[in-house]
């Protein structure tokens, strides 16, 4: 979620809550009830901060539950997400005020450290969510659904094979058998390849005369560099770098006759899309990887908080 002007009301609300809570705390520990013995989680004020902090945490935790029941009319997802961000962050100062800025014993120390990790990971996550989508829009124009990246990569690998078929069979296969198999495959999966009808017909026609004249360097280039990159065996330079890849393809174009230039262009575009999908995958990991810390630890925090609440009230 981008943090923009739409968060303004939440920002002001959070600042107001923080100022009121902080002011009340200052009054309480300097002139109020806790001035005598210092702040304590067990004092009336301390308990109120504890209840507030826990409520904010629970509200933040309910975002996960809200996502499970998207159809319920319990506020817009944006409202829950903003509440998660701002109240979840406010939970930490509330816990500080609750504990009087002490970590206390073993369980309370663990709870506090878990809160630190969760809030910090949440802030980092919010920053990623704010910055990475823009970067992704800029650097991955061919973005696809993250879960479908492996499937699309498989399609691209097959499409590359089809484009490179103009160079003839890869491993000394019988030419006629190979032609039949390639032509049949080209027709069956044509609907899933990003190529025009005209281009597909050109490729089918080229199969009849494959291998094309002067295609040996292209075949060599495809088998050594393009194919391993497209099928994911190699994510090494130069093809993972757009500038170097462009230079490499330009050099190849010089070595090849004019009729093969379109094939080379197709392969370059396929490599570019593969590279973008790899970048999308990396960005997606940054975008959501922090949740591997944030969410599981939140569950641990929830369990331990429940125990803390019960036992603390018992030994009040």
């Amino acid at each position: 979620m981008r943090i923009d002007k739409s968060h303004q009301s939440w920002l002001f609300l959070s600042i107001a809550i923080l100022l009121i809570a902080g002011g009340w705390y200052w009054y309480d520990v300097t002139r109020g009830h806790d001035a005598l013995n210092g702040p304590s989680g067990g004092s009336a004020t301390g308990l109120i901060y504890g209840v507030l902090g826990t409520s904010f945490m629970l509200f933040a935790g309910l975002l996960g539950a809200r996502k499970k029941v998207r159809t319920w009319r319990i506020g817009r997802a944006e409202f829950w997400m903003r509440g998660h961000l701002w109240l979840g962050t406010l939970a930490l100062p509330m816990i500080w005020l609750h504990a009087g800025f002490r970590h206390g014993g073993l369980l309370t120390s663990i709870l506090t450290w878990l809160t630190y990790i969760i809030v910090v990971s949440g802030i980092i996550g919010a920053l990623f969510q704010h910055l990475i989508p823009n970067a992704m829009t800029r650097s991955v124009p061919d973005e696809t659904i993250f879960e479908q990246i492996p499937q699309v990569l498989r399609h691209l690998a097959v499409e590359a094979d089809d484009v490179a078929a103009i160079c003839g069979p890869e491993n000394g296969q019988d030419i006629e058998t190979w032609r039949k198999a390639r032509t049949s495959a080209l027709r069956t999966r044509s609907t899933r390849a990003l190529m025009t009808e005209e281009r597909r017909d050109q490729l089918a026609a080229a199969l009849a005369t494959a291998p094309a004249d002067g295609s040996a360097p292209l075949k060599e280039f495809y088998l050594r560099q393009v194919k391993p990159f497209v099928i994911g065996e190699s994510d090494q330079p130069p093809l993972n770098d757009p500038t170097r890849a462009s230079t490499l393809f330009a050099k190849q174009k010089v070595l090849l006759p004019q009729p093969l230039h379109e094939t080379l262009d197709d392969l370059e575009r396929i490599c570019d899309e593969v590279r973008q999908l790899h970048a999308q995958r990396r960005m997606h990991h940054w975008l959501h990887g922090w949740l591997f810390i944030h969410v599981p630890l939140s569950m641990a925090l929830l369990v331990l908080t429940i125990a803390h609440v019960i036992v603390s009230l018992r030994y009040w």
Partner: protein
Amino acid sequence: MARSRTTKTIAKRIDLGYFKRSHPMRRWRRVLTWLCGAIALVWLSMVSTRWTDKGLSLNDHIHNPGPVSVAHAMFQDDCAQCHTSKPGGGFILAVTDQACLKCHDGSLHEPNQKIAPEAALVSRTKSILAIAEPAHPGGARSADCVTCHIEHRGKEMLRAVNDAHCLVCHEDLPAATQNGQPTAANRITGFTAANHPTFGNHLRNADKKWVDPTVLRFNHQRHLELDQFKNKTDSCTSCHTPDPQDRRYMLPISYEKNCQSCHQLLPTPDSEPVVHGQLSIVRAQLMSPAVLFEPKLRAMSPQQREAKLVKQVRVGRRTESQQIAPEQWIADQVNALNKVASEWMDGEDAKKIPNFELIKAASTQPAEQNPTGPVAFVAYGMANSCFKCHDLKSNQSTLELSTLPTNLGNQRKFTASLFNHDSHRNQSCRDCHEAAWVSTATSDLLLPDINKPGAGAPSCVDCHHADVSPQIRGASASCVTCHNFHDRFLDRAVPAPLTKEPK
């Protein structure tokens, strides 16, 4: 363009049922989430319970909100030792006074403080902080222990009571006392000259002057001007040495340790010294003065004794030396001493002793009418030995002279507070006791005051002040730094053995 990138063509590459299957990343996150919850639950269960001979029992130490004080460390893992259920308390286990009273007596602060007849009437706003309990000395004890004593805040916090607790009463002490007449100052609000009374309130005499209650004649100035003490760094510690058992205080001064080497109790220069401390023996020694000379003669070498046992006798116009028996020499010494004593009795010095007239009258009576023996000589002897330092009194009927108690050894100048000499060992004695160098009388109070330093030395408030800014941060100036709340003299013996059922 050879490749056609339209929504339609792109959509054809997508597996439309992808959302029905969870992506591994999402799946693993979910697994990890539940795993973390389960780990937390299992860990909590494991550390919260323990197996004993009696089966599974709760082990609450992980819920301890902070380290307990040193005194309670033995049961820091056993919450139930202090957290007991109030009558009708139900689920909540609070710390009641009864839990503290198992080991502590919670004595009163001051017998004159206000006392509530029942727990419900204990009130901080009304300065009623004690509750009547006949079993306790003073008929009451301090109430609501946990109001002042905060546990689970570390090793020291339990007794590091906030000054605000003390100010509940000491801001207006008459209102907090039963008779409205406190023995301490009416208002004490902090450790500054303006807000704290001068030290040693009980040391004022009838004229409201501060006096040292020690009954002894000692001139500090004269001693400090002696060669062996003058300008010496150990001039004070020659006599005032720290108690090795309790380095807060100095050992009491004793004659044997500190005075005898210079001041022997010699009734006459040729006699043996009389003993110190037991007046009956001193009197016996002086009533039979022969015993003062005989040991002296015995202790001499043969040559010395031969020289001593010679008497100059005039034979005609000549003076001859004659050997005399030891008994004769002793008798001569006693007679000479009696003569000196008789002359002393007629002089001015003798008039300083109590009941002088009666003693003089008795000394002129014949020996058979004077059962107390040679009264004049006893008086003379004591005046020359005891009276140098001690005040004397005499019994009206027997006329026996005796010394007044000095009060040395059983007096603390600061009875309402604790002072630790050892903590202040980086100061010199003179920093605080400058007055000793000009004191000529024992009644001079040689104590420092709250804001009156010694020569060029810091005063108490120079170090002990509430300002905590880094430049002038000082030592603690809270009430409990120097004062105890509970009057330990009103403590009973421990009501129960301090033992705990083994786990």
